[in-house]
């Protein structure tokens, strides 16, 4: 267990994210209800659950893609419930998407450069970025971190699925993130690419916390230090990866019965 989780459990650590009674309804459909959770700074949390459990809706509520119907969200102590998405991003919140959301007409480097610029004051600059530009240097560094340095000038539309997933992560790493929401980053990846993904996540600086939604338990349990289970729009169990893996109720709902 990491120090941050220990601090959270003792109630002394600063919380990166606090959710109090967050709910989201789509007409009569209750996608989320009564979600309350505390995630310490630097903590790495997995959120598991079957399809339709409300995991991605939870992410959308946190990032502001959908405003919650009820409840409050705090990010590093600040209430961000009513802030638009871009304001939340500027405070250090990032996300990736279950289905890659990329800029098909741009090159890989330009995409990451824009992600670095998104939180700077020079977003409206009509000047071309210089080779020595800070954002460009950051973009090059992130390019290396996600192993896309060989494709820096490749058009995003021509990248393979695995490379597009790497770029998804690269966009979330840009511009000094403090907390990242990873939505099924391993979806559709080969075993080799999954190993690379685990290495990338484990190599993230320790101060960057995240929540990862992942159906691949091998990946989810190896990159998280605490796990929350969701079912039918509710949180129903939390624990360490080992506790969750061994829990018979979790196995019943998520894995369709005892395994191993």
């Amino acid at each position, binding site marked *: 267990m990491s120090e941050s989780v220990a601090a959270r459990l003792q109630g002394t650590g600063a919380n990166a994210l606090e959710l109090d009674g967050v709910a989201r309804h789509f007409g009569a459909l209750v996608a989320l209800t009564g979600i309350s959770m505390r995630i310490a700074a630097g903590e790495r949390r997995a959120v598991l659950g079957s399809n339709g459990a409300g995991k991605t809706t939870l992410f959308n509520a946190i990032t502001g893609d959908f405003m919650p119907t009820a409840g409050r969200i705090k990010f590093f102590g600040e209430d961000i419930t009513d802030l638009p998405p871009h304001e939340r*991003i500027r405070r250090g919140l990032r996300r990736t998407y279950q289905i890659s959301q990329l800029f098909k007409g*741009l090159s890989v480097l330009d995409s990451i450069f824009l992600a670095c610029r998104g939180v700077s004051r020079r977003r409206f600059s009509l000047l071309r*970025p210089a080779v020595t530009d800070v954002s460009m240097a950051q973009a090059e560094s992130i390019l290396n971190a996600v192993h896309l340095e060989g494709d820096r000038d490749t058009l995003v539309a021509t990248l393979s699925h695995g490379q597009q997933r790497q770029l998804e992560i690269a966009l979330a790493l840009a511009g000094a993130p403090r907390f990242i929401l990873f939505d099924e980053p391993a979806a559709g990846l080969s075993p080799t690419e999954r190993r690379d993904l685990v290495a990338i996540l484990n190599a993230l600086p320790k101060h960057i916390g995240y929540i990862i939604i992942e159906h691949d338990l091998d990946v989810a349990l190896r990159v998280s230090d605490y796990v929350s289970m969701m079912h039918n729009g509710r949180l129903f169990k939390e624990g360490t990866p080992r506790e969750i893996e061994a829990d018979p109720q979790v196995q019943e709902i998520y894995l369709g019965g005892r395994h191993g």
Partner: protein
Amino acid sequence: MTAVVSAPGAPARPTVIDRIGAAHIPLAAVLLLYPAFASDFFLTQIGGYSLIFGMIGLSLMVLAGYGGMVSLAQITVAGIAGYAVAILGLNNSGVHGFGWPWWIVVPFAVLLAATASALIGWIAVRTEGIYTIMITLAIATAAFYFAQQNYTIFNGFPGFNGLRAPEFWGVNWRDPVPFYYLCLGCAALAYAAVLYCSRSTFGLTLQAIRDNPRRMRAIGYHVTAHKVFAWFLAGLIAGLAGVLLIWFNGRVSPGTINVAAAINVLVIAVIGGLKHPVGPFLGAVVVVLMQTFAIDIVGAERFNTLIGLVFLAIVFVSPDGLLGLWSRLKPHLAQQPLRSGP
């Protein structure tokens, strides 16, 4: 941070010609020397007019090609600058004509047009796709009828006439050769600015918003603000073209900004192609040539049919316009024979 090492065989540092683009040099030479072999008619009615409409098409290309926002209000924006020049400068209509000097009127008119464009954009960016076209068409139509029915500001149906390009630096800019170079200078400035800015932070931002606005929000961009700024910049180009247009016509009236003119701008941009700033200028040359000479080929009653058929043929063969046609032909032209001679 990992050091970035140039890959072996990486291209050398670009030369000045690489930076400018080799194709621009012969193009610039032809355009600069055009007055040497063109008659006054070809200089203004074809050359100047194409450059002016190319600029208005360019303002649409910025919005549609880079920003994914198809506007039918670009001629309206140009018209706002035109009316501002007529009202604040001198005209022969006996209405308004405050007689402000051109060096105050022109920047003011262009900024007014750009501000109006930003306002139109602010309304239009709430919509997407076909709805953006519809809302800008509604704005263009409303502006036309307002100008036609309002005599207090716009002098209604007749509008303003007697508008002339100024004389300064000892040159009468209304004369064919100076006016052509004036249009060429403004068009080249607008073209170079768009080409340069397409690779600037804002240019990349606009293209990224076109591709995926949701992701842009998720990396910290205020998508609406960026779109509205794009409308402002496009308004600067359309406004400048509007000033040249009314100097070219010598008048501005509701007919300058009617729906037919609005659609003409769209046709110019689509025929030329929206993927590169040169597209609208190519489109403008084709449209202006067709509008000028189709009547000589098939007579007064059928010339619009011929124009329509040519446009249909271009779009049918190449949905990306003339630029798309060129990009399809280019590989074939560059293809080397598999075997050299016998």
